[in-house]
């Protein structure tokens, strides 16, 4: 049954389905970051991911873009899918109760053949109010502002039928839906956005269920994750994050990986540089050969965070305000290619997209399993553009 | 130098000369070859057979083995070990000072090292005789070692040649009963063979029982009874006073008790003595046998002796004694050979032991088995006699150590006792088990048991 064709009728059960079932999928991932913080528009990503058409099957595509809302860089930007106006009304009531809404609008789209049955797609720029700004505590509750956002997102996604927050960070946004990624890009008019860090995803789910909320990237706060593969440690990872209050509502690998990043980096304060030692831990036989200090460190990480080891095939690209991070599983069961040209860092499932947008990179390599690729964004440049008005973007092509 | 010049013919200098081609001599040759692969070894023997085992002659006699099988080393032994063997060569004299010897044919040999392993020779008593020989009608007044061979039907039984002759004589003359003078070891060994052949025997024994030296009264009785049951006789406290000769052959004899007996074949088996007559002793010490130390060295440098010709340590007596038995001859010979070739092997001494089977009754005696205790306070005797099965076991214990054993009827595991004697094991903790019929290693004192069970092999 093609549920996407009758999404209005089936939306409740579709979302229900997604929250109950894990859907394994193959995929294409492609990410580009400008480490200098220079922004470029979404066409490079659309161009790139389009050459990996074969890796998708039209049941999901999406993009995450950072630096696209400089005029609201200090405010929370929520992208929300609604199945209907009732869900929107209910959600907006909740938003109003919990935030100061600075701007709410429909996200501009255009008609593209191959994209059908989109939900209602809105974005909101929100302020949490003075309490957090002053105390980073709110009404005596033992929470940081970020936890407050996480709780709110979880609450909406879990409890309001027909509403789904797909993006909840600052100065970033996620655009995704059912269709091939290049069509989704055009649908969302991404050529009109400029960001310094983009990731994109083409999806090949192994069933015919297409649901806009289930497309990738998955996002929470500033995190966005695109992922290729199917991890075998899902249950273990899920139980691990659940011990810290993360509830996996989507049953996707991407979701649980996002939570792992959030938990390890934001909550446990583990340095980005060693996060791969947890997510794709070295083998014991490698650990045994390490010098004393390092061995002790890696062993301790593995003992404590064994349940955060992501097992089975994956290549992921994680986007965040300050960096782009790509990682392969430890025995490299999925492809990952990286390249650099000047300030640009490319990571991709295949070499072709990189060659498409950057025919002669300075360096191109195939990272080992468990070897991270990190692009750090120089924050100064980002700051410089903050405060600009939300505006349509010019069409200047990116030159690399 | 001077001495060398004395030697008339320019004689060969041989690295190792061995007099005697039997147990001790050949064990020595092997011992030499363990260390010295090249040195020349020459073995002299007065006998004509390549090699044979003396204890085997009674088995040959009994027909258990034929002439081909009396050898204890195979034919290749001499070539494999590169040994020059000189048969039919009686050594006439040994010049211990000149380090040379002369054969009966007059040839002289010089040696670097000499082993005397000439064994023993039978004792022939002087007995009054009456009669003439067959050929020259020569009259005999008495027989003795010099002339007994000239009378048909009188034999000793210590060499293969003796056995061949006895066998021929029996066949030729259809002998049905054989008299054996001497009820000791050799006599009984001969008796074993004749009984096996189905020939009745008369044993004439000076003492009041057979095997008086090695058996006690009970053991002797069991054997005597067995012999008598078969129609054979034993004349105890007796000896031959006169031999009757008819046509050069023995026809009868008169016993000490005056009884006259018919006899067509007499075996004289009253004992052997070391064969040392040919040695120009000089400084070489000879008591009853050649005296050797624990490395089988005689009192003359580079001259060794081993086997039945020597007297050396009896571990039970604690002094030298001539114990003429095969196992000791082999051990002595092996030690002598190794020492001759420059090695260092101690001969740790031995004690008497013997195995004889009369009419399917096996028996073994070892050590000071005839002791009865009582005389000496520290000697204790354990006996176990099963009349029904005719099984007898006797253990002689001195200072808590076994010094003698007699087993009759059941000899299984006899060597365990030999081990206890040799290793001087204190058996006080296992005394109650020691004479049991099923006595075994498991009954032994814990340490010795462990040594046997856990170890890999003994150095007895």
């Amino acid at each position, binding site marked *: 049954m093609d549920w996407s064709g009758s999404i209005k009728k089936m939306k409740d059960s579709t979302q229900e389905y997604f929250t109950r079932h894990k859907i394994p999928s193959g995929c294409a991932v492609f990410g580009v970051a400008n480490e200098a913080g220079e922004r470029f528009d979404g066409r490079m990503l659309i161009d790139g991911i389009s050459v990996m058409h074969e890796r998708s099957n039209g049941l999901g595509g999406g993009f995450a873009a950072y630096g696209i809302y400089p005029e609201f860089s200090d405010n929370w930007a929520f992208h929300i899918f609604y199945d209907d106006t009732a869900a929107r009304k209910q959600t907006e009531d909740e938003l109003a109760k919990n935030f100061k809404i600075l701007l709410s609008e429909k996200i501009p789209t255009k008609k593209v053949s191959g994209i059908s049955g989109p939900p209602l797609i809105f974005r909101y720029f929100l302020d949490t109010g003075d309490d957090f700004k002053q105390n980073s505590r709110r009404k005596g509750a033992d929470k940081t502002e970020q936890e407050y956002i996480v709780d709110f997102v979880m609450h909406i996604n879990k409890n309001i039928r027909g509403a789904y927050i797909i993006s909840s960070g600052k100065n970033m946004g996620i655009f995704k839906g059912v269709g091939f990624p290049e069509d989704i890009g055009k649908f969302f008019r991404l050529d009109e956005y400029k960001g310094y860090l983009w990731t994109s995803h083409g999806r090949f789910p192994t069933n015919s269920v297409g649901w806009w909320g289930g497309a990738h990237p998955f996002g929470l706060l500033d995190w966005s994750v695109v992922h290729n593969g199917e991890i075998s440690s899902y249950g273990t990872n899920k139980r691990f994050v659940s011990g810290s209050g993360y509830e996996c509502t989507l049953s996707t690998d991407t979701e649980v990986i996002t939570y792992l990043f959030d938990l390890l980096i934001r909550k446990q304060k583990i340095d980005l540089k060693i996060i791969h030692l947890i997510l794709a831990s070295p083998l014991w036989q490698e650990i045994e050969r390490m010098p004393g200090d390092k061995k002790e460190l890696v062993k301790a990480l593995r003992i404590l965070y064994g349940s955060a080891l992501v097992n089975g095939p994956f290549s992921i690209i994680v986007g965040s305000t300050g960096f782009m991070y790509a990682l392969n599983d430890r025995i490299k069961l999925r492809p990952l290619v990286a390249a650099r040209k000047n300030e640009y860092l490319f990571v991709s499932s295949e070499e072709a997209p990189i060659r498409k947008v950057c025919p002669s990179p300075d360096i191109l390599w195939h990272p080992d399993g468990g070897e991270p690729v990190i692009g750090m964004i120089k924050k100064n440049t980002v700051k410089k553009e903050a405060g600009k008005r939300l505006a349509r973007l010019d069409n200047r092509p990116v030159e690399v | 130098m001077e001495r060398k010049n004395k030697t008339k013919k320019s004689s060969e200098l041989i690295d190792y000369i061995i007099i005697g081609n039997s147990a001790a001599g050949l064990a020595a040759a092997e011992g030499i070859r363990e260390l010295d692969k090249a040195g020349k070894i020459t073995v002299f023997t007065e006998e004509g057979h390549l090699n044979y085992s003396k204890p085997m002659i009674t088995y040959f006699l009994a027909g258990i083995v034929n002439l081909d099988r009396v050898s204890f080393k195979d034919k290749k032994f001499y070539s494999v070990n590169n040994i020059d063997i000189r048969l039919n060569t009686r050594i006439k004299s040994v010049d211990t000072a000149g380090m040379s010897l002369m054969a009966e044919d007059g040839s002289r040999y010089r040696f670097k090292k000499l082993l005397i392993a000439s064994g023993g020779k039978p004792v022939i008593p002087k007995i009054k005789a009456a009669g003439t020989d067959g050929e020259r009608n020569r009259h005999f007044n008495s027989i003795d070692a010099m002339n007994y061979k000239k009378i048909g039907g009188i034999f000793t039984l210590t060499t293969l040649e003796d056995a061949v002759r006895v066998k021929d004589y029996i066949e030729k003359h259809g002998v049905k009963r054989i008299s054996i003078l001497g009820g000791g070891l050799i006599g009984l060994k001969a008796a074993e063979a004749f009984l096996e052949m189905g020939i009745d025997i008369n044993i004439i024994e000076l003492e009041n029982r057979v095997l008086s030296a090695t058996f006690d009264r009970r053991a002797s009785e069991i054997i005597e009874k067995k012999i008598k049951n078969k129609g054979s006789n034993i004349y105890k406290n007796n000896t031959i006073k006169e031999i009757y000769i008819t046509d050069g052959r023995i026809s009868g004899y008169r016993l000490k008790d005056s009884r006259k007996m018919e006899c067509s074949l007499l075996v004289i088996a009253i004992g052997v003595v070391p064969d040392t007559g040919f040695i120009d002793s000089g400084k070489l010490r000879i008591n009853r046998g050649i005296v050797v130390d624990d490395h089988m060295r005689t009192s003359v440098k580079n001259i060794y002796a081993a086997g039945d010709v020597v007297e050396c340590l009896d571990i039970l007596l604690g002094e030298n004694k001539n114990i003429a038995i095969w196992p000791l001859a082999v051990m002595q010979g092996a030690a002598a050979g190794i020492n001759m070739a420059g090695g260092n092997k101690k001969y740790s001494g031995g004690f008497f032991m013997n195995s004889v089977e009369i009419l399917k009754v096996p028996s073994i005696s070892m050590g000071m088995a005839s002791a009865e205790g009582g005389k000496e306070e520290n000697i204790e005797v354990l006996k176990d006699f099963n009349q029904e099965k005719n099984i007898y076991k006797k253990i002689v214990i001195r200072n808590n150590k076994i010094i003698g054993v007699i087993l009759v009827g059941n000899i*299984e595991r006899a060597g365990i006792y030999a081990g206890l004697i040799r290793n001087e094991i204190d058996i006080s903790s296992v005394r109650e088990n020691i004479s049991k019929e099923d006595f075994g290693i498991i009954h032994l004192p814990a340490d010795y048991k462990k040594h046997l*069970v856990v170890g*890999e092999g003994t150095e007895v």
Partner: protein
Amino acid sequence: MPERPGDDRMKRIYIQEEYCIGCRLCEIYCQVKYSKSKKIIKAYKEEMVDILPRVLVEEIGYNSFAIQCRHCADAPCVSACISGAMQKNKNTGVVTCDEDKCVGCWSCIMVCPYGVIRRDLAGRKIVSKCDLCVDEDIPVCVKNCPNEALKFIEKDENEKNMVKSRNGKKK
């Protein structure tokens, strides 16, 4: 003094009396090996009459062990043998009795401190003793011991084991 290669490197049967369970399967399989058919049921039911096991189990209470010829380095039985039947093979170290040569004088029985040579009266008078199953990879008594109380190993290995077990033993 050159070593006899046979003795130091030969595999011997070592006895672990603490693990002998007194089942006597060693004796049974030894008898079967020297039976005509070498088939256990047939051997026992039809041929067994007088086949002697060449391994002996001694047992008192819970103490027991199976013992067979130790194939001594300096074998007293070989010295004592008057017929040349008892020989120690210099290459293999194995002491065997050539049954064709043996005359049944029992000299070996007289000197063997282990008491592991027995009179075999089934046919001609000869002795019966363990030949270390020279025609098998592992002697049948060892192979069939259900508790590995018999081991067929080299001296070095045995010494290693002894050290090990001594460490594990009460002082």
